[in-house]
Each structure stands twice: as C-alpha cells, then as structure tokens.
C-alpha cells in the first residue's frame, strides 16, 4: 500500500511555480506600493505555503481528518495572534487621563 503516487511532472510544475513566486515577491519589494508591499509579500507567501502543503505534502490527496488538523492549528494560531495583538493595540485608547479628557474632546470638535 504505497499510497498516492504523484506524477513527477506535477512536482516539477509546482516547483517552477514556487521559484516564480519567489522571484515575484523579491521583485515586488523593489517597487514602492506603500502599505500594499506587506500585503503582497504575505499573500505570495501564503500561496507558496499552500502549494507546498497541497502537493509536496500530499494534503490534496489526504483524508479530511488531516485537513481538520491543519485548519485547527491555523485557527489556534489566529486566536493567539488576534487576542494578543488586540490587547496591545487598544492599550492607548482608554483610560483617557482625566486632566486632558475634556481637552481632546474639544480638539476633536
């Protein structure tokens, strides 16, 4: 029971895609897209990682259970990052120190 055997050609195709995406992401970093640089870099990384997971790691041909494992680990990672980041970036919001609460309100008005 040797499991699913992937044609060699597919492996080389995926590899070519990965190298192309690496060239792309490196190239994009030399163009100023402002905030979108980071988005592009991460989006390309996600594409590359998906290629590796689906084809090299055979997840495409694996049971649903293994997909559940992968998805839940990503969900848990999102929980860790999401709730921690959620704290750090809302720390400054309140409490507005009493002494200048009214002033900032005036400024906003």
């Amino acid at each position, binding site marked *: 029971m040797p499991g699913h055997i992937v044609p060699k050609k597919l492996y080389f195709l995926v590899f070519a895609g990965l190298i192309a995406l690496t060239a792309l992401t490196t190239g994009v970093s030399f163009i100023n897209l402002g905030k979108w640089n980071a988005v592009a870099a991460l989006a390309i990384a996600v594409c590359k990682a998906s290629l590796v997971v689906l084809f090299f790691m055979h997840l495409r041909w694996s049971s649903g259970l293994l997909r559940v494992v992968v998805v839940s680990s990503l969900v848990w990672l999102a929980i860790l990052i999401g709730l921690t980041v959620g704290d750090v970036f809302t720390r*400054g919001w*309140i*409490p507005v*120190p*009493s*002494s*200048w609460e009214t*002033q*900032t309100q005036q400024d906003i008005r």
Partner: protein
Amino acid sequence: MWQGFPIQPEQASTIARGVDHLYYFLTAVDLFFTAVIFLTVFYFAVRYRRRSPQDKATQIEGNLPLEALWTFIPLVLVVVMFLWGANLYIRNSRPPTAAMEIFVVGKQWMWKLQHPEGPREINELHVPVGLPIKLTMTSEDVIHNFYVPAFRVQKDVVPGMYTSIWFEATKTGRYHFFCNQYCGTNHSLMGGYVIVMKPEDYQQWLSGGVRGESMVSSGAKLYEQLACITCHGTGKGPPLVDVFARPVKLTDGTSVVADEVYLRESILYPSAKIVMGYPPIMPTYKGQVTEEQLLQLIAYIKSLSSGEGKVTK
C-alpha cells in the same frame, strides 16, 4: 461587621461600596448554587442508597428541557455578572477630571512617591480625604503592583510604561498598601501606609517638613540643564507649548495624541515617531535621565499647556 474578626477590609474609598455590593451579589448566587448542589447530592445520596445487592437503578437517558434549563439559568446569571462587573470596571478606570496627580516609582523593594507640590515620600502616601487622587506609576526594574485593599484598587507597575489608578478616600485613617506582583526577595516587605488626612491637615503636612521643589520646577530646571531649549524653543525642533494632550502629526501621515507615554517615548527613543516637518536630529536621553526625572520633565511639559490647571495648582 464582626469586631476583631473582619471578613472584608474597610470601605474607605468611593468605589469600595460598589465593588462590595457586586461581591455580595456573587456571594449570594454562589451560596445558593452551592446549597442546591450540596443538598441535592445529599438527598439523592440518602434517598437512593443501595439497600440490598438486588437493588436496581432506573435507567434514564437524559432530559432535554432540563439540560436547556440548567444551561439557560447560569447563562443569564453570568451575563448579569459580566455586565455589572464590566460596567463598574470601566467607570472605575476613568479618573475624574479634577483628580490630583501623584507620581509613583517602584523599585526593588521600595516605593518612591512624589506630590506635585514637591514633597517626596518613601513607602508612605499622605492624601487629603474627599479629593480624587490619580497615581501615575512606573517601575525602575521589575514589575510591581500598587494595591490598597481598603480602596479596592490595584494595578501593576510596569517598567517601560505608565499605568495609573485613581481613588477618592472617604475616611481619614491609615490604610495598608502592598506590592501585589511578586518582585523578588523582599516582595513581602514592599508596602506601606496610605495616610488619609482632613484637607486642612494635609495642607499643614504639605507646608511642614522638607518642602522640596515642585515637580514642575524640577522639570523646568532639568529642561534647562539638558539644553532642550536650544531646539524646542528655536524652531529646530517642534515647540512644546500646548503640545500635551493634543494630536501630533507624524512624518508617516498618522497622528498620535501627545500623552505621557508618547512624551516618554520621544525622550528615550526620539526617532521612533518623528513630528511632521522636523528633521530627526534629536539624540536619545536613554540612560541620562532617571524614571523620576522623566516624570518631572513630563510634568513640566504638561504645565506648558494652557487649560492645564491641575498640575500647577
């Protein structure tokens, strides 16, 4: 309350009563459910004990309405607890605008406190009754925590950032305060007393003893010593008059409110957030000013802002 065997600390601040009421509510709910569980278990235990080896249990799979009921009732109760607790917490987190600000620096293993008028104290804090007091706190080394049980407030005192609590004492007296974040060898000795006085006694206490310089004038002196004026008064750097509590526009287009945290960062890490229209030429003052001096500088910068009557009062 029982004399000699208290079960709660004195209610000595404006928020203590509210916290205690919530506490009574939770205690009542807890006692009720503990009683329900204990009595039911006890009753079943006796009523359905095995009397002979031939005793047969009646098999029951479950009961959906019952499950729904004992999911729903606790749910309602915890929602009440959450809303009540969160509401009180948010209200207690906002210091009143008229609060008098006292600066607190924790270090292993002592508390250094400074009043705006200048007097410094160690492990003792004198405050007038009936006036909201805001403590702005930071640490020189590890994390500490300033905790006054009689006032029902505490907050960690964290190196590298400012945290604050506020309280308004309602009774004169001496109240224990503790360090309540484990901070090393003499953690358990790192505490003292808040001494709540009548306003006139407080005034007398302020004028008696070693007066010292006010926070603002110490800050002004430092401002001169460190030659801040050579840039911040000449247009080379952003002016500091009326900067506190105002939004500041940065080079990357975003803006921040110039609060204590921002001012602290700008003195220690000047190139982290550059004000729009100014070159990043300011050197860092990290290692050159202590936490206490930082607080004095910030107090001075605050005093340069109009409408900011509190600190210089």
